[in-house]
């Protein structure tokens, strides 16, 4: 059975460097995508991603397993992102030059799928920052409404409302296609 995140973080706090590696590998992808889809460029995303983990390492001595590790991690990420947003503009990373999923060899259908995906990405980018963050925390980081509220410092009603608005707008973009 895999050790829970909280146990790994506590082990790292107590000097077990291997515990951090397990924790890092478990969360790196989700956290990276959360950051990447919240900022303008990949380079910025990498910079922020590194800083968030550095803050986790720095704060290890103060870590207490009062909440899920994920909530703690994304609270740190949220705070770092807020700093970033306050300094600069809001934008989403452009879509990579990659083919959309599906094995249809039909170029017309491929183009259509790509357009639909771009429309979705634009809708995500167009969301107000708080709504987009709520959506990414729910969809990517798998946080509950209460955890989103805890990580972003708002009340659960506000978190729920942001998430619902975000999903409604994204759904409209999906159905448009």
């Amino acid at each position: 059975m895999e050790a829970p995140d909280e146990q790994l973080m506590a082990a790292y706090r107590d000097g077990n460097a291997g515990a951090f590696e397990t924790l890092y590998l478990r969360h790196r992808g989700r956290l990276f995508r959360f950051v990447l889809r919240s900022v303008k460029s990949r380079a910025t995303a990498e910079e922020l991603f590194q800083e968030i983990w550095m803050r986790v390492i720095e704060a290890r001595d103060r870590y207490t397993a009062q909440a899920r590790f994920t909530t703690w991690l994304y609270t740190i990420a949220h705070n770092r992102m807020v700093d970033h947003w306050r300094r600069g503009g809001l934008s989403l990373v452009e879509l990579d030059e990659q083919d959309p999923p599906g094995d249809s060899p039909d170029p017309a259908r491929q183009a259509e799928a790509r357009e639909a995906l771009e429309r979705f990405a634009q809708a995500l980018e167009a969301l107000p920052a708080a709504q987009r963050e709520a959506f990414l925390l729910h969809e990517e980081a798998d946080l509950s409404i209460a955890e989103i509220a805890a990580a972003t410092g708002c009340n659960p009603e506000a978190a729920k409302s942001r998430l619902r608005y975000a999903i409604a707008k994204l759904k409209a973009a999906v159905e448009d296609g």
Partner: protein
Amino acid sequence: MADERDPKVSQRYRELGREEPPGELDARILAASRRAPETGLAPLVPPTGRRRWYFPVAAAAIITLAVAVTLHVERQQLDPGFSGLRSEPPEAKKEAPAAAPPQESPAKPAAPPAAPAPSPRAADAMQERRSADAQPAARRDAQSGAPARLYGQVAKVESPEAALERIAELRKQGKHDEADKALAEFRRRYPDYRIAEEMLKKVERP
């Protein structure tokens, strides 16, 4: 957990891709994570991108500050009427930084100067020399005690709330650069601390 997901939205979101951080970044972060428990210090990872210049500037600032504090403490403790100490600046310099961080070190060497109290009355030239040796030592102890106290004050833990009040005060006084630095330090020290909206207005640059 109340799942608010919409299957179509979730599916389309997944189609955006599953980007991952580059291996080089993984290696840097993991190396920093391994170094931190060994050294007990904050991780040293060279900043990337536009903050690349932070390290050299920070290193220069730290060295300047360390030299300035050492000189300042030395000058403060220097007794103009006592020539013995002046003849030993290199030794004093050597001891000051070593004695500063641990609290116990000033206490230990302080014992010998206290010990001469029951010294015999038959004080000959030899003993005079010994007490003359002891005096600069005591003075050095006092000197090393001073930085220890000084460091003690600096290292005194400030609560996040107090720190924010201090930053707000700086902002109020128009010391924005200082406030910016203090705020950056605050965020580094308390990365998971949520600043209330009301306070945020006071501590952020208007």
